[in-house]
């Protein structure tokens, strides 16, 4: 096991060991995979000693280190209201407290499960992934980062270092909801993250991101466009919720049927938009 103390040392270790190396952050996805022998890395590179990856700065937008934990999103006072509240809500839903203290944002994104909870709010916030590799840093919009079920644009010699969230501006609100039979320790049947920004009573920007209804998290673009430039009345929100269903390409599995998932997209889109709107208006909902 390699124990780098900086991003640079990490990049060096990846360059040296190539595809044989596997990064571990919180280990909550990796350890079960190791134990089930789904994965046999030549060498594991531990990110827990890299302090810079654990920083969360809020100054005209957010810079979230890849190793910031779900628990930190849940409890950070700077995310407790308005635009970032949906992100905090997604962190609060991951696993149990024992898992949230370990589970990192970067691990959630790089594991790239269709049901990952912390991805929709970050997509809805137009986050950008900051990637480090042997040729320096590159930035990729999060919406282009995940390429399929458990696959990303990351090369074997690269790591995710940070999520960069642009300033959503005043009068912005966000919300995340998922449906699970059990509140804790369950996997989303459907998850929806919504963000809205208002100016003079009109919606200037709307983002709706869906989890667990396609191979990757997806934006409901038609629904977003239907809201922008409009006053967000309950009717418009309901229309957008209907449009959001069209972005979903769900499968039927033991957690839910296609019909049920489509229904959930509509309900959760309506609820998250309604809550995001209230928060954009300064409400504590």
């Amino acid at each position: 096991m390699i124990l780098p103390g900086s991003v640079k040392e990490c990049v060096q270790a990846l360059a040296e060991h190539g595809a044989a190396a596997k990064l571990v952050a919180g280990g909550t996805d990796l350890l079960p995979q190791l134990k089930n022998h789904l994965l046999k890395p030549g060498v594991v590179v531990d990110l827990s000693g890299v302090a810079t990856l654990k920083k969360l700065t809020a100054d005209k937008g957010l810079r979230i280190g890849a190793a910031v934990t779900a628990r930190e999103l849940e409890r950070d006072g700077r995310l407790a209201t308005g635009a970032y509240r949906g992100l905090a809500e997604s962190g609060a839903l991951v696993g149990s407290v024992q898992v949230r203290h370990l589970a990192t944002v970067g691990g959630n994104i790089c594991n790239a499960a269709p049901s990952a909870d912390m991805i929709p709010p970050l997509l809805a916030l137009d986050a950008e992934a900051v990637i480090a590799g042997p040729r320096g840093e590159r930035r990729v919009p999060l919406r282009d980062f995940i390429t399929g079920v458990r696959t990303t644009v990351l090369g074997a010699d690269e790591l995710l270092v940070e999520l960069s969230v642009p300033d959503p501006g005043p009068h912005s609100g966000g919300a995340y909801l998922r449906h699970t039979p059990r509140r804790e320790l369950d996997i989303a049947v459907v998850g929806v993250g919504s963000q809205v920004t208002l100016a003079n009573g009109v919606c200037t920007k709307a983002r709706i991101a869906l989890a667990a209804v396609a191979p990757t998290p997806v934006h409901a673009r038609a629904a977003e466009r239907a809201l922008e430039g409009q006053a967000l009345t309950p009717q418009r929100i309901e229309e957008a919720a209907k449009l959001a269903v069209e972005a979903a390409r769900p499968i039927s599995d033991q957690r839910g049927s296609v019909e049920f998932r489509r229904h959930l997209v509509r309900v959760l889109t309506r609820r998250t938009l309604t809550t995001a709107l209230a928060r954009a208006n300064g409400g504590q909902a």
Partner: protein
Amino acid sequence: MNVRKQAMTLTLNDELVEVLVKPYETLLDTLRETLGLTGPKEGCGTGDCGACTVHLDGKAVASCLVLALQARNRQVRTIEGLGTDDTLHPLQDAFVRHGVPQCGFCIPGVLMAAAALLAETPRPSDEEIRYGIAGNLCRCTGYTKMVTAIAEAAAAVPQGAR
């Protein structure tokens, strides 16, 4: 996989300990198999049951999901370090008085989760207590007494104590 052991130090129940670990051994295995602390239990081994809960730098974690080397130079507390040989922690005392343990397998994990909860939220509501131990599975389903005992202990723990 490389099986050469690596040396590390950690502070375990307030004592500095040096230990040799295999690269991909879990903290739970190190605690139980090498250091002889069998309070933390392996239930599921995948972070779902909470029986292996210990404190890492004061925070409740599933030790079956932590690689031992990730605990290098950090503070680990297990159930063995919650009270002392002479004095039970108020949570342990309340669990004994309320007869909470049935089979007992989940209890070390529940106590560590509850202790971490009280450190963060000294006077939790019943709902906060239930969420605080929602990551701990009790196959005997003895949750009601747990909640009562934790609430009672919360009233007895002085503010700021672990």
